[in-house]
């Protein structure tokens, strides 16, 4: 199968590319960043997904499947550029898929779509609207990109579009929101709060994306692996020291004293849980995670 991966040089992009390449798929990638150690046969085009050169890749390669991972998801990065990539980039990809006869489009989104709030239910199902955008405007473009990708389902019904809302990832790549948050020896928590966190091994994420391609699923799906764990338990199991900070002091502590930087809106994500129900995805694809929560944390810790 001919598979085009946008954002291939990111940690998850690399995992997905290696997974497809190892089973004999023809893989090509687009990314602004280089991927020096790309496996043989995996071609990386270093360009922006909104540029003409990216469209040329669609024209020349004629992919059957597009896995769109070129979104900026770091909550610490906030810029005009980020909005443009997430929204205009997603628009360009959907248009190219339509114009160049792509059969299947996978949009790799995030479970943070649902937001964290005191009244958000555990185990979100896919039909739920996002909560808490008002308290965390940094997430608005990801929410919009997710919904925009979903609109491809009715705009271009000939494309099998799947929007995946994937939980936090952790693993040897040491990359992503949760990995950055757990980086230092001391991890800030909000005093008196201990939400459930849901995460999965990055290899399992690659497997889940492959399962979505194989099953040709259409629609919006939550993707999760092991059972959720309390944040404090994750921190301790990773060998870190939780540093409970009163809510009111949180914004002056973050980014100082060796603590990671987090935008103000992210504090709600340290107080209230985002837990998704991924049973529909498991039913549709037969996906099963291979790394449990402890193995996933260990893989993250041992790569240090």
């Amino acid at each position, binding site marked *: 199968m001919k598979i085009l991966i946008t954002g291939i040089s990111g940690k998850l992009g690399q995992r997905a590319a290696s997974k497809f390449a190892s089973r004999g798929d023809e893989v090509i990638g687009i990314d602004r960043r280089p991927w020096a150690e790309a496996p043989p046969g995996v071609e990386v085009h270093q360009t922006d997904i909104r540029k003409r050169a990216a469209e040329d890749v669609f024209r020349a390669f004629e992919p059957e499947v597009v896995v769109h991972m070129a979104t900026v998801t770091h909550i610490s990065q906030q810029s005009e550029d980020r909005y443009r990539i997430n929204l205009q980039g997603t628009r360009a990809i959907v248009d190219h898929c339509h114009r160049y006869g792509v059969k299947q489009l996978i949009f790799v989104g995030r479970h943070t779509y649902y937001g964290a709030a005191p009244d958000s239910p555990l185990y979100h199902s896919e039909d739920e609207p996002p909560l808490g955008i008002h308290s965390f405007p940094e997430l608005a473009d990801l929410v919009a990109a997710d919904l925009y990708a979903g609109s491809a389902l009715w705009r271009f019904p000939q494309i099998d579009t799947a929007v995946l809302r994937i939980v936090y990832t952790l693993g040897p790549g040491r990359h992503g929101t949760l990995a950055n948050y757990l980086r230092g020896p001391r991890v800030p928590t909000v005093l*008196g709060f201990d939400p*459930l966190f849901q995460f999965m091994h990055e290899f399992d994420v690659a497997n889940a994306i492959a399962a979505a391609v194989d099953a040709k699923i259409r629609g919006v799906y939550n993707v999760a692996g092991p059972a959720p764990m309390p944040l404090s338990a994750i921190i301790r199991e990773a060998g870190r020291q939780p540093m409970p900070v009163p809510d009111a002091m949180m914004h002056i502590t973050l980014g100082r004293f060796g603590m990671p930087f987090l935008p103000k809106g992210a504090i709600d994500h340290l107080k209230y849980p985002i837990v998704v129900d991924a049973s529909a995805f498991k039913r549709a694809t037969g996906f099963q995670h291979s790394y449990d929560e402890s193995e996933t944390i260990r893989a993250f810790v041992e790569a240090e």
Partner: protein
Amino acid sequence: MMGHDVGEKVCNSLTMIAYRPLINEKVRARVERLELPFGEHGIDPYGAGKEELAFGFSIIEILYKYYFWVESRGLENIPARGRVMLVGNHSGGIAIDGLMVLATCFFELEPPRLAQSMVDKFLVKIPTFGALSTRMGQFPGLPEHASRLLEDERMLLVFPEGARGTAKLAHEADELVRFGSGFMRLALETKTPIVPFGFVGAGEALPTVANLYQLGRLLGVPYLPITRYLLPIPKPTIFQLGFGEPIRFEGTGRESEDELEPMVEEVKSAIRELIREGRAIREAKQDEEGES
């Protein structure tokens, strides 16, 4: 497990409390007998944790057995397992009645069962307290939570009077205020039997003469109860708690309000009867005490 103790790991919500010495080992043994799918980390899929349950029920035990006293009857009406809704009245006085029903199900049933109530959103926002109640399986009252828990064969504790019920003043404690119909839709949708209960005495424990709504809002709570002796601290009291036979209703949950009304009324009158019984027991006892 990397050499850490499970208890230490799951108790960030209690970091500021030296909680361990407060755990009663007998309570911990009862927590072990709860039929909930606890995972590797002593946490069930909703985040209810063994350690927090042991701590919480150790504290509740002091209130339940030494400060208050609950005379319960009809416990045999509560099924040992499987989905069920306990539906009853608030008899005023914040939500001591809810806490006592929770304690009764945990300490008196064999095997113990965890009643999962639907708490007000404002409680979830209170540091430590909110985390502790979530870890004890008491979640914000959302229809999504309620139906999911029932589909998982859990026991749901429902007060259809809601905050209207906890705000009852002392002289209206035994009367029922308007019932929402949400609980009935939920029962029909999930085909859950309803066990009615009547609670008597919370109004005497916390004889509220007025509720201050505006001051409460300033403090982040729905209202502040003012008692005869001003402070909102309950007095030691004996409560009467009666459970009735399970009632099963047939339907889809998509009925009109008019169709639901007689069903809600049936539950309401069962509760009214249980309150009347409880009140009779209470008064007989008070007469006895008065004579002796």
